[in-house]
């Protein structure tokens, strides 16, 4: 089982300090919701944990049984969804899932993920032709298809309808069985998932 550890983490962009001295330990089974105003640093915190950004101060690492994971193990352990990313628009849903499975070294993707997110009847559709809600579901599927020990979801509910929110709830429940979840959000529905809620930006 993988834990996420932040030790005295601070992030600044130029003179603007987003947060400083942040320490946190997220254990398997936990759901940590990162809340805060727009621009407070919620997405930045998730990017730091994903390894897409280096902290200005402090350290972020993942560990299993007290051993720090190296870059390759960290990559295999993380699933990440962000409003700033997209699937390949020229490819179909199936081709996107096939591609991300193959580059992760998986023989095939998990059909249960597709069922869970209601994508089964959209598999042959190009992503460019999907509504924003279905694009969000594809992004969730890509983040989950390797059954990551740590799932990072940045605003998972945006663009989703009621059925989509129920699917996010199912994703959260499933992830708690498998590992831990960090979620950046302000939506009351998302806040309710948290076993711990931290607020950034004061």
């Amino acid at each position: 089982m993988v834990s996420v550890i932040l030790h005295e983490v601070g992030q600044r962009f130029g003179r603007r300090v987003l947060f400083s001295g942040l320490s946190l330990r997220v254990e398997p089974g936990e759901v940590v919701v990162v809340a805060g105003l727009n621009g407070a640093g919620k997405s930045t915190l998730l990017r730091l944990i994903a390894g897409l950004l280096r902290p200005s101060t402090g350290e972020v690492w993942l560990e299993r049984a007290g051993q720090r994971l190296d870059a390759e193990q960290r990559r295999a352990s993380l699933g990440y969804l962000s409003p700033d990313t997209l699937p390949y628009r020229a490819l179909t849903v199936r081709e996107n899932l096939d591609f991300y499975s193959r580059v992760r070294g998986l023989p095939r993707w998990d059909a249960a993920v597709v069922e869970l997110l209601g994508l089964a009847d959209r598999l042959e559709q190009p992503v460019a032709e999907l509504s924003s809600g279905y694009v969000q579901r594809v992004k969730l599927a890509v983040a989950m298809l390797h059954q990551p020990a740590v799932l990072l979801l940045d605003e998972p509910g945006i663009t989703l309808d009621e059925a989509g929110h129920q699917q996010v709830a199912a994703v959260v429940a499933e992830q708690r069985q498998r590992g831990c979840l960090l979620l950046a959000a302000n939506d009351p529905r998302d806040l309710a998932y948290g076993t711990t809620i931290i607020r950034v930006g004061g």
Partner: protein
Amino acid sequence: MAQPSSGWAAEAAAVLRKDLRVELRTRYALTAVGQFAVTCLVAVSFTAGPQAQSAVQAALLWLVLLFAALSGLARSFVAEEDGRTGETLRLAAGATAVYLGKCAFNVLLLLALCGVLVPGYQVLMDVVWRDPALLLATLLTGSIGLAAVLTFTSALVARAQMRGAVGAVVAFPLLIPLLVMAVAATTAALDGSLQGWYHVRGLAAFAGIMLTVALLLFEVVWNA
């Protein structure tokens, strides 16, 4: 967590297949490279014409190839960033697989370009290749070297704020040895000189060195 079962070669093949599929649907790089190559080829044939010396003809062919390649290959990674797919790819795929997959795609793109450009050049410039095998070997090794450099500099460019400036500053000095050897080998292919094979060995060594250096440095650039 699901256990991975394949290595970097299978992952690189997946990146190559994905890029080929996206390119066949969007035709972005093919259009950019093709339009540039055809325009340059026609302009060169009108200006230099069949009376040009073989060294000049060889240099013009490689200039057309170089600038056409710059217009298409330089976008390998910029397209990922512009399409907002870069971060997901960075988290999903290993750096070695991404570099090799994209480099292989660029080699195929360059060979396809050569397949159109060289026959067109032959007709418009009225050239006769006295050693076609030497020409093919030059185009193959030159394309691999060109792709190795431009794939790497494309990754640098994609991560830079002043994209155009970085591409030009980094790529051109690295490509000078390749251009010198490629022009010499192509001149020899036109003249039928056996000395051209010496330059082909140089091009193969250049490609090998550039691939090795790029693979060693790519992870730093890709994860910067």
